[in-house]
């Protein structure tokens, strides 16, 4: 094989080699070099499925990252700015990548660089600033009636982590968890885990937030949010940080006596039909797939939607940054939920719950969107 001669310009039609330009150092060079552009990621990418355009695929975005890193495109380029926000960050591509490209980390590095100063989407900047204020988070949780902090962390007990948005938006979730984790404490002074910052251009600050939260809660941390659990596990270690479904299932399997008696849920006298939308970070980042399904199956008829493992389009700030694409990505699931005649649709992350609830309302479906522990709570004896 012979490559065409190297040129120093990037005019139309000139054939360049990848080593022709000096990298700017925006990305970890090993991470960027891992992609060989085979395209195996294309068929699983939710945004590529919508447009069939290369820039909407993981491979196309990595080509854009390379162009940015090698100076062929400037950070002001409109496509770079658009695509940095257009990727859902669901990391489904990582699960099919034979080369083991760590796309999620590349995306973090891209947004760290791209979303600085005036290039930061206002929604991302506002959220990053908002969830940084721990006293406000605590107050929000108290006002809305989330699980009440129990004081300083007891290292011997598992700690329930209070999601910074979940406390205020879905306060019942943390309260329900305590019914299944009677031995857990709820350490006071919990801040945000940083996942939101890491995915929105602030990965350095995010890592510091994760470490601070880890110090507030020495020992095992249990999270009701797939996104928080995956990020925190990445920072503090998966052995310390567990998402609620994997924690409950492991505990109940190790000690069946610790499992409360749960009845089978019925709707109009027949077994309840329950579907699931995975949390992408949980499924693709942490590899937790079976536990939520196994728990649902304990109380209802579990129905696997064809798109169960595909992003719901909520994706952190995505539904606000990219409302049209966000809806388009969700639409197939709404159709499937209707066809499957679901009674409940389970989510594992606060952002997914919001996105699914909005979609269900828009499509006028009868299915009720709940968090996994809310479904399990329904199955507790009265």
């Amino acid at each position: 094989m012979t490559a065409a001669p190297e040129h120093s310009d990037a005019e139309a039609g000139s054939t360049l080699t990848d080593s022709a330009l000096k990298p700017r150092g925006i990305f970890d060079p090993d991470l960027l070099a891992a992609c060989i552009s085979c395209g195996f990621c294309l068929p699983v990418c939710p945004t590529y499925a919508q447009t069939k355009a290369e820039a909407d695929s993981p491979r196309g975005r990595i080509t854009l990252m390379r162009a940015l890193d090698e100076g062929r495109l400037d950070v002001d380029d409109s496509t770079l700015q658009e695509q940095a926000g257009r990727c859902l960050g669901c990391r489904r591509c990582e699960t099919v990548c034979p080369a083991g490209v760590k796309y999620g980390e590349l995306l973090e590095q891209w947004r760290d660089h791209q979303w600085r100063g005036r290039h930061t989407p206002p929604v991302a900047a506002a959220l990053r600033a908002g969830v940084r204020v721990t006293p406000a988070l605590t107050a929000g949780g108290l006002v809305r009636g989330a699980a009440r902090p129990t004081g300083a962390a007891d290292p011997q007990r598992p700690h329930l982590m209070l999601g910074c948005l979940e406390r205020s938006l879905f306060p019942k979730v943390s309260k329900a968890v305590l019914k299944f984790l009677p031995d857990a404490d709820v350490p006071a002074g919990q801040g945000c885990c940083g996942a939101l910052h890491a995915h929105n251009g602030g990965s350095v600050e995010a890592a510091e937030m994760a470490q601070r939260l880890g110090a507030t809660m020495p020992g095992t941390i249990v999270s009701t949010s797939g996104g928080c659990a995956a990020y925190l596990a990445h920072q503090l270690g998966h052995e310390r940080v567990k998402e609620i479904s994997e924690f409950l299932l492991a505990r109940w399997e190790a000690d069946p006596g610790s499992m409360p008696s749960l009845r089978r849920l019925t709707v109009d006298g027949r077994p309840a039909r329950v579907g699931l939308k995975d949390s992408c970070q949980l499924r693709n980042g942490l590899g937790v797939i079976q536990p939520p399904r196994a728990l649902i199956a304990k109380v209802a008829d579990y129905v696997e939607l064809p798109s169960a493992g595909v992003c719901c389009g909520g994706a952190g700030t995505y539904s606000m940054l990219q409302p049209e694409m966000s809806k388009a990505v969700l639409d197939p699931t709404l159709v499937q939920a209707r066809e499957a005649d679901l009674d409940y649709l389970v989510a594992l992350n606060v952002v997914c719950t919001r996105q699914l609830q909005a979609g269900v309302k828009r499509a006028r479906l009868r299915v009720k969107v709940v968090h996994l522990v809310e479904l399990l709570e329904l199955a507790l004896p009265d």
Partner: protein
Amino acid sequence: MIVSDSTSLPLPRGAGRPIDQQTLDDLRRIVGGQHVLTTDGDVEPYSRDATPLFRARPGVVVLPASTGEVSAVLRMASERGIPVTPRGAGSNLAAATIPEHGGIVLVLTRMTTIKEISPDELLAVVEAGVTTAELADSAAALGLLYAPDPGSRTVSTVAGNVAMCAGGLRGLKYGVTRNYVLGLEVVLPTGEVIRTGGRLWKDVAGYDLTRLLTGSEGTLGVITEVTVALLPMPAVARTGVAYFGSLADAGRAVAGVIHDGLVPATLEFLDNRCINAVEDFAKLGLDRDAGALLLFGDDGTAESVERSLSLMAATCERTGARGVTMAKDIAESEALLTARRCSLPALARLAPVTMLEDATVPRPRLAEMVDRIDAIAARHNVVVATFGHAGDGNLHPTIVFDPADGDVRHRAEAAFGEVFDTAIEMGGTITGEHGVGAAKRPYLQRRLGADQMALLRRLKAAFDPAGILNPGKLGS
């Protein structure tokens, strides 16, 4: 006019030039504004395909939705001398879709309709942008088999497979893409829409243009619709794995299998480096210490498959296999095949650049070729990992390197030059299934000779008088 060398056809007059405003306006009128990409950032993702080291930015990217739109674009490009590089999913490994001379990259991924699958006629009709896996899955749902099985099947488009004459894992028993193309709808560079072949297994009216266009790498026409032959789905398919001390030993086992009179569906092999790269990704419990792995498999009736697999297992043991295991169910068989398809990208774990080749030799000389490749790699001091379709004599020696490592790239190119010469000397070819593209253009004349090269140019000129389609490649 720009002439790239004394024997090549002239490049079109728009080669290497920016696209003028009038042309952009006309393109937008033809396919709609949002399907014409013009900014640097928008066209950059189309500057490369799955081939390492090749990259060139298009002047404009056009995504048509219909044959009529393709025709209008080509007619205009011919009139104005603008280069056009057709592209499917961009998964080819020969730099065949790199727009070396700029101009239009014509992307067919929006044409995704499966028009018909006919169990009665055992055929399917699909638009250009349908992926190979979508076609195969839709056929399988009706109990039918689309036999061609290229490694990139989940990504690659059917028309792309036809344009490159893609091979794959079932070549020995079932042949390759060309054996299943019954008919094509093709837009000529000058805009006329022709239909070659059709729905018939027997049809000898005129030259076999279907075969000529199959493997024409986007230099003669743009394929917009494909009619393919299907087969009844075999009742049973099974695979097994045998481990050997070396790739050459596995090659001798393959010769033994064919000597036994078997024509199995699958005979794939991987060397130790490939086994480890694939195992890192797929985690199937492969033997990481083995020198080589031979994946053998067959399909058919339960009895015939049973017989075929036990014969192959016995042959492997007789020729020195250090272990033979059978996949216990369909899922395990599929996992093995999927892992094999991932060999190339999995090798990317070893180093930043994976330079893959596709030399093919007559089957009985497989083991000899494997030894010769190892010797060539050692002489040029490069790391080579080899896998391939052993049953077809089709090897994929892959040199992995870090471009920061001095002159390694030149050593790799020199090594491959020798590999090609060796393959030709043994009665083989420079490419079995990946195609020539820009990547193997320097070696094409060695394989074809001057007279045949001249004929290719006359054919190219007959199809494409303005020389706009994928200029500089194949018959140009």
